[in-house]
């Protein structure tokens, strides 16, 4: 039932807008075929190119397959990394970019025209560890995580870890910290969280897809970090939630802003964006969410599009795909290990998609 609700909302919106009689780009009946997004549309571009983030690549390829068979539109997505996605959309070599970290103000200023952030799904990053003899799931306070990754907490039996884990016998051994060696959206969410919970982290290390790590060894990719943690006794690292679930890695609980230790799951990740204030431009960081049920190390991944696309066919094609992705497309998220967008975020994203224009006219027909 839950997954049907965006559809219902869409139907309501469609009727409302039809009653208002907005300006369709091509007129005579085409508009009804183009919106709501159900089948093929004669006025849209037959192929779209996108590039960027690797984290959502799995659901994007599923969407591309499903959307292709529903509409006949061929979408090409190259998962070259978030940095590459931002570069590609800035250089206009693609129709849409994709990134796990929002573009900075500087990057937005460097682009020649306004770029919109459309959140598509959510993901989370979890602490995973290898402690011989410890069978219980560990709980981490924000202070403990920041302290470990800053190199200030060096032993497992440090009271800052132990106090949150009564009844667990922690060894007096050195902590081996493992981080990503490659630039990554996973790292961005992790350090964005650490920046919010630790002033020291924010001023000495900061936020980015790659940072200057105070301690630890680097592994390439989720598999590199997970592999290193698995084979190094007394180690701790961080990986994407989906990866931890698939590989059955131990994932620690993290204490959220409201003081609850929350187990990372698709539901607790979706909660992170529910009922919280989100920036107008949707470039929102939702780590350390105020929702009491939220897992705090969660984040959006975004598609990046120009607010105005001169080619009306491209503009229609891109907006239809985006609309479909955040409504119909959401039902594929959970099976693939992504957290779907909560309803209020979908509504905000829909409004953003509506604001895309082609030569000043709305790109999406007001069906």
């Amino acid at each position, binding site marked *: 039932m839950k997954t049907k609700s965006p559809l219902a909302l869409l139907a309501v919106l469609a009727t409302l807008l039809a009653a208002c009689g907005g300006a369709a780009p091509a007129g005579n009946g085409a508009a009804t075929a183009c919106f709501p997004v159900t089948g093929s549309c004669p006025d849209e571009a037959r192929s779209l190119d996108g590039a960027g983030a690797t984290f959502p690549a799995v659901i994007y390829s599923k969407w591309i397959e499903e959307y292709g068979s529903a509409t006949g539109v061929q979408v090409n997505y190259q998962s070259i990394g978030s*940095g590459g996605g931002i570069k590609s959309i800035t250089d206009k070599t693609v129709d849409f970019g994709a990134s796990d970290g929002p573009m900075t103000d500087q990057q937005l200023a460097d682009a020649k025209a306004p770029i919109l952030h459309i959140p598509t799904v959510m993901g989370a990053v979890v602490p995973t560890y290898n402690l011989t003899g410890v069978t219980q799931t560990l709980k981490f306070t924000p202070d403990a995580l920041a302290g470990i990754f800053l190199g200030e907490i060096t032993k497992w039996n440090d009271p800052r870890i132990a106090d949150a884990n009564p009844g667990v016998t922690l060894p007096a051994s050195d902590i081996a910290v493992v981080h990503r060696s490659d*630039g990554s959206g996973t790292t961005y969410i992790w350090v964005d969280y650490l920046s919010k919970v630790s002033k020291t982290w924010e001023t000495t290390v900061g936020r980015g897809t790659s940072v200057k790590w105070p*301690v*630890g060894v680097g592994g*390439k990719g989720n598999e590199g970090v997970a*592999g290193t943690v698995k*084979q190094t006794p007394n180690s701790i690292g961080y990986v994407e939630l989906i990866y931890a679930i698939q590989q059955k890695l131990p994932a620690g609980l993290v204490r959220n802003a409201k003081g609850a230790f929350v187990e990372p799951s698709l539901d607790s990740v979706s909660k992170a964006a529910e009922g919280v204030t989100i920036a107008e431009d949707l470039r929102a960081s939702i780590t350390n969410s105020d929702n009491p049920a939220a897992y705090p190390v969660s984040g959006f991944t975004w598609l990046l599009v120009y607010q105005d696309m001169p080619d009306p066919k491209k503009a229609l094609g891109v907006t239809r795909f985006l609309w479909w992705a955040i409504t119909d497309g959401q039902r594929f998220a959970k099976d693939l290990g992504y957290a779907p967008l909560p309803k209020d975020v979908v509504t905000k994203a829909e409004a953003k998609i509506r604001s895309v224009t082609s030569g000043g006219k709305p790109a999406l027909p007001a069906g």
Partner: protein
Amino acid sequence: MTSRADRVFAWSVGALALLVPLTLLGIALLLLVDAWPSVARYGLSFLVTTEWDPVKLVFGAGGYVFGTLVTTAIAILLAAPVAIGASVFLVEYAPRLVRGPLAFLIEVLAYIPSIVYGLWGFFVLVPFMRTTVEPALQGTLGGVPLLGALFSGPVVGLDLLTGGLVLAIMILPIILAIAREVVSAVPSAQREGMLALGATRWETVSRAVLPYARAGIVGAAVLGVARAFGETMAVTMVVGNSSTDISPSLFTPGYTLASAIANQFTEADSELYFSAIVEIALVLLLVAIVVNAAARVLIRRTGAAREGMIL
């Protein structure tokens, strides 16, 4: 007619041959253009300062240079004696029946893709180093003054020593193949002369063969160095990818120039960051050209001398 056809042909093959140096020049120029913001900003200090912070946009590749030099040095110190010894054995001592298969086996190492070395290094060598080799080194040499500093600190297995060891295995076949060529290029007259004077096998090898082949063997080692310098995947998987501190211990995780590119290229989203990464590529290209040229000169010296003898 014929002479004109000849000229046309000469021009066309000449143009084709010119394509190769032009491609190299093109690559170098493109790298220079993309690296310019970083080159202009940091100059030569880029190679010696060790602060590399993509968040604060400060880039100094000194840590990567250090890691590259250390892993390469370990590799060549471990691989060169083995390769040279094996080449002498194959040419001077091995029975004909053994020579072919043994040489083939060693050279097969050269055809294994580097990612395979990386996987083997990560899943087999790293745990072995962590549990066995490094604690043993620490236990025996750790207490020796000065030398002990090389084997101090916590043992994780992902470090400069493991990186150097994987590189050693990878460059071994290259050095061996060339050293074997060079040693077998030593004219028989040299050996026969020594033997006629009543020298033993060992005296012949150490006084006649090796001195004669010296330049070529050094050249082989230099080519090995060139390979170790640029090797990327396998090292990245075992070296630890961290350049936070430059310490004398070989047990600290390190970072090499090539690994820095492999790890950070895709997410280098600001202009200066990107150009700093490209500057690393430019440095690697220049080093590769210089080192390879030096190696060729050295190897050719042995070859040229041989021709002189025959005449």
